[in-house]
């Protein structure tokens, strides 16, 4: 808080650069290692990981049970883990129950399976409104749910990161796990969309 006065005049880019220099001089960060970390999150760690988890759960009933029982462990079976993945809880969307995820206080998000959150997820309007009027917000985002579908808003806490296991769309019974992966979108795994059959 003590830095606020100066932050008015110095751009966040300058403060960030200054901070990185100071931390580098103290041996606390290695810029090259940071380059690799950032590249990993920009290119490798993303919703494709979660899509693989979902497709496996759709095609392997035993895996689906393990996933709903202990998300972190079952996700780890596919090689995904790391920061923000320590306590992932997976909830299943069905024809009668629809889960949607938010972090009302900041922007907690299951990085290992979804990557870093999109801007709308961090936006104050989404964070406030999805709790108060989820059906309206989902409708605005293009998801019309029948009136008899129960909506459950899952608010991340300091520990839990939620992942939605979307409903497998009708008409995909003949598809293999590999064919199902590209159908699964990030938005469906946050619960603001459904997975559509191809």
């Amino acid at each position, binding site marked *: 808080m003590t830095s606020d006065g100066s932050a008015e005049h110095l751009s*966040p880019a300058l*403060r960030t650069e200054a901070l990185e220099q100071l931390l580098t001089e103290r041996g606390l960060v290695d810029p090259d290692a940071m380059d690799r970390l950032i590249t990993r999150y920009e290119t*490798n760690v993303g919703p494709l990981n979660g899509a693989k988890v979902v497709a496996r759960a759709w095609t392997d009933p035993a895996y689906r049970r393990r996933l709903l029982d202990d998300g972190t462990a079952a996700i780890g079976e596919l090689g*995904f883990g790391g920061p923000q993945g320590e306590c992932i809880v997976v909830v299943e969307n069905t024809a009668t129950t629809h889960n949607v995820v938010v972090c009302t206080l900041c922007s907690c998000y299951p990085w290992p399976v979804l*990557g*870093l959150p999109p801007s709308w997820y961090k936006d104050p309007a989404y964070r406030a409104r999805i709790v108060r009027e989820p059906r309206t917000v989902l409708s605005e985002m293009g998801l019309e749910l029948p009136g008899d579908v129960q909506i459950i808003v899952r608010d991340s806490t300091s520990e839990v990161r939620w992942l939605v296991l979307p409903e497998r769309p009708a008409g995909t019974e003949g598809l293999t796990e590999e064919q199902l992966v590209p159908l699964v979108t990030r938005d469906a795994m946050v619960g603001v969309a459904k997975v559509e059959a191809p």
Partner: protein
Amino acid sequence: MTAPLSVEGPAAPPRSNGELVFAEPWESRAFGMAVTLYEEGVFTWQGFQAALIARIAAWEAAPAEGECWSYYRHWLGALEDVLTGGGTVSAGEVTARAQALARRPTGHDHAHGHEHDHPDDHPH
């Protein structure tokens, strides 16, 4: 505690299923510093998260006039809060260094074409 995060396989890059995660380069550096320092045990994630929540709550209670919502601005503020709170750096030295960087002669940044041999804007 390096996390096994890489993805094998030839499938489409995850960005095709999402969007660019950082709007500006400094956002990625602020992100990278927080994750690196957490992994080194400089602070706990709970501590950082509490600082982030406090920064966001303060802004939402009284948005700065004329200042658009910027998630990573709060992220950076939270990072400075935990580092100054823990004595790792002082707010004054961050400000002093940032002011020194601001005084760099023009031509340092991308405004002038003759500096094309510096693709990165951070020191190595």
